[in-house]
């Protein structure tokens, strides 16, 4: 049976849209834009306090975007929490899997630390590191740890707020001391970025793991080591 919307209108609309988009992209790319912001950005990387260009953009040139992005992540978690408590979780894993997890999780945490540190000059950074921490939490959850290795709600709340907090407070303090919002003083940029990234990594990891649980952590659970 032919449903006109699904079989005629949408496909032909999409084909027309595709033509328009393709043509526009062709004109955009072959137009006289040159390097766009590449040369400007690359030229200022040495002033940014880190040598990885992407980290420079993320945490210095366009740090304000990243601040709001962390806020988006936090919003998602708060939204998830508002929808109810976490489900019953997975069954306790078999001992073989338990053993695997026991070996794997510390490795993930270690590589997260490495990824965070290396992000200043090589591929990596807070988000990748945070994702690894989150992955550790997911593994723990899969292995049957009810709270994915996260602390109790009282302590989890400061943890997930930490990244945005350090970021925002740094921005405001810098404005107060006179430089302007999120304007790092020349010598301090590297360390400020590292502090912000560390806080962000912890928050991202905790937030992603908590989001995986899909609800507020169960209250009666004994706290494990923080992710």
């Amino acid at each position, binding site marked *: 049976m032919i449903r006109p919307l699904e079989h005629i209108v949408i496909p032909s609309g999409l084909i027309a849209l595709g033509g328009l988009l393709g043509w526009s992209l062709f004109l955009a790319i072959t137009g006289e834009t040159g390097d766009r912001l590449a040369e400007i950005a690359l030229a200022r990387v040495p002033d940014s306090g880190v040598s990885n260009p992407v980290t420079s953009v993320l945490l210095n040139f366009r740090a304000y975007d990243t601040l709001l992005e962390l806020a988006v992540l936090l919003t998602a978690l708060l939204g998830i929490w508002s929808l109810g408590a976490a489900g019953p979780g997975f069954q306790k894993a078999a001992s073989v899997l338990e053993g695997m997890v026991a070996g794997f999780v510390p490795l993930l945490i270690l590589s997260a630390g490495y990824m965070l540190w290396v992000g200043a000059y090589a591929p990596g950074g807070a988000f990748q590191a945070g994702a690894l921490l989150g*992955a550790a939490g997911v593994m723990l959850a899969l292995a049957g740890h009810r709270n994915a290795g996260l602390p109790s709600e009282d302590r989890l709340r400061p943890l997930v707020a930490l990244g945005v907090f350090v970021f925002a407070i740094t921005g405001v303090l810098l404005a107060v001391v006179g430089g302007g919002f999120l304007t790092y003083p020349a010598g301090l940029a590297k360390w400020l970025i590292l502090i912000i990234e560390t806080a962000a990594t912890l928050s991202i990891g905790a937030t992603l793991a908590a989001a995986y649980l899909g609800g507020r952590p169960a209250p009666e659970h004994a706290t494990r080591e923080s992710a």
Partner: protein
Amino acid sequence: MNLLLALFDLLLTLTLVGLAVVTLTSREPRRAVILFIAFGLLLALVWARLRAPDLALAEAAIGAGLSGALMLAAARRASDRNSVSTEGSNREDAP
């Protein structure tokens, strides 16, 4: 060299698009999610090719990994629900 690279690019692109098509047309939730994860990993590979290693890492860890894990849990719930409704058995007693 350039020709070889171009062929490689073409191959990657075709695989990527093909994988997207397969992902988007899968009806079975679990299969669709697994294909989506594979798609994300391939995308990470392509981005590594495009000199975006930061993004490749992030896409592999977040886009494919965590999104995939989240969706897998949802897919598992979906298939659980299907099996409960079809078999009518209480699988909570299962080991």
